[in-house]
């Protein structure tokens, strides 16, 4: 018990001295603590040899050291600021490096959230005009069909019909966008298919994936089936075909 008490008291004095040191490195603090500890123990041992009560000797040895904060302040004045500034510069450099490393993923995440928001509010900018760069659509109608797919949404936002030269059937382009329900989550690719599919194109980011599905329809056909692959079985959605332009 006595041993524990002594160590705590000496230790407390050393800690108090070191708490004032602003310019000291950890190594310097440890070295000073060891030196002060040796001093106090040596002093107490000398007093005990003279017949002092051990506890009184230890208490006196600590008191003889003087005010811990004063000792710490005076010692700190003698320390060089070199390592302090080195440490500060290192911290700044480290901060800049970490910020640089984080800036890439953070920017990507920010872009993904922005894309997700865009897909929810105004998906029309998606990939219009990218399907047949050399042909204008005969009919181009905005639609808004939102299909929940677990933690994602598939939204159909535009249908376009293109005439095919010297043929009686038509190309149909169904524009979709997929985005996560939680804007902070990444969107995973799903591949819906049109019945009588021709091809598809897509672009997007982790925030939203735009797809243009190309198929073939007969004149007057009311619906075209859209098959959405899901775990277990596919879901079939019938999309109305707009043969007339909405005024």
């Amino acid at each position, binding site marked *: 018990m006595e041993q524990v008490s002594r160590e705590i008291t000496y230790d407390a004095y050393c800690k108090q001295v070191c708490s004032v040191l602003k310019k000291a490195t950890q190594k310097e603090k440890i070295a000073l603590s060891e030196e002060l500890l040796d001093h106090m123990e040596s002093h107490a041992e000398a007093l005990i040899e003279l017949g002092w009560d051990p506890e009184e000797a230890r208490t006196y040895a600590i008191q003889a050291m003087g005010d811990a904060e004063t000792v710490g302040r*005076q010692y700190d004045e*003698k320390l060089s600021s070199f390592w302090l500034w080195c440490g500060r510069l290192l911290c700044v450099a480290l901060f800049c490096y970490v910020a640089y490393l984080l800036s890439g993923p953070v920017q990507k995440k920010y872009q993904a959230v922005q894309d997700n928001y865009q897909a929810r509010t105004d998906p029309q900018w998606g990939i219009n005009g990218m399907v047949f760069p050399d042909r204008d659509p005969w009919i181009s109608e905005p639609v808004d069909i939102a299909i929940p797919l677990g933690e994602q949404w598939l939204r159909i936002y535009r249908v376009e019909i293109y005439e095919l030269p010297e043929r009686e059937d038509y190309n149909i382009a169904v524009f979709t966008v997929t985005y996560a329900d939680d804007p902070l989550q990444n969107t995973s690719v799903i591949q819906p298919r049109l019945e009588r599919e021709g091809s598809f194109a897509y672009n997007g980011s982790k925030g939203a994936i735009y797809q243009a599905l190309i198929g073939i329809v007969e004149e007057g056909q009311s619906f075209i089936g859209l098959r959405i692959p899901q775990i277990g079985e596919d879901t079939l959605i019938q999309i109305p075909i707009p043969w007339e332009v909405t005024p």
Partner: protein
Amino acid sequence: MAKKQSIEHTSLLVLSLLSTEDMYGYQMIAELTKKFDNTFSMKEGTLYPVLKGLENDGFVEVYEEKTESGRTRKYYHLTNKGRRQLKTETETWRAYERAINSVVERAVYGAGV
């Protein structure tokens, strides 16, 4: 019994002590207490800032040794630069001492002495 005095010239005293042998902190305090016949008084912890200053100036060097009880003990050694500094400070101190003595003796024994 002489009144205890606070010593202002700790650096000079430390350099003087180290001119005879390498010492550790508490040993210097014990030696000063013995030499001054208990008229010396200083807060012992304030010795270490003085020692650090002397080390920074290159007047003393530090090395470590293990004590019998296993503690790490720092010993201070006077360098050649420290010896030259001791000589300079001793001369300064003696000039100061002569000036003080002349004033005090004049006051005690009168202008005719």
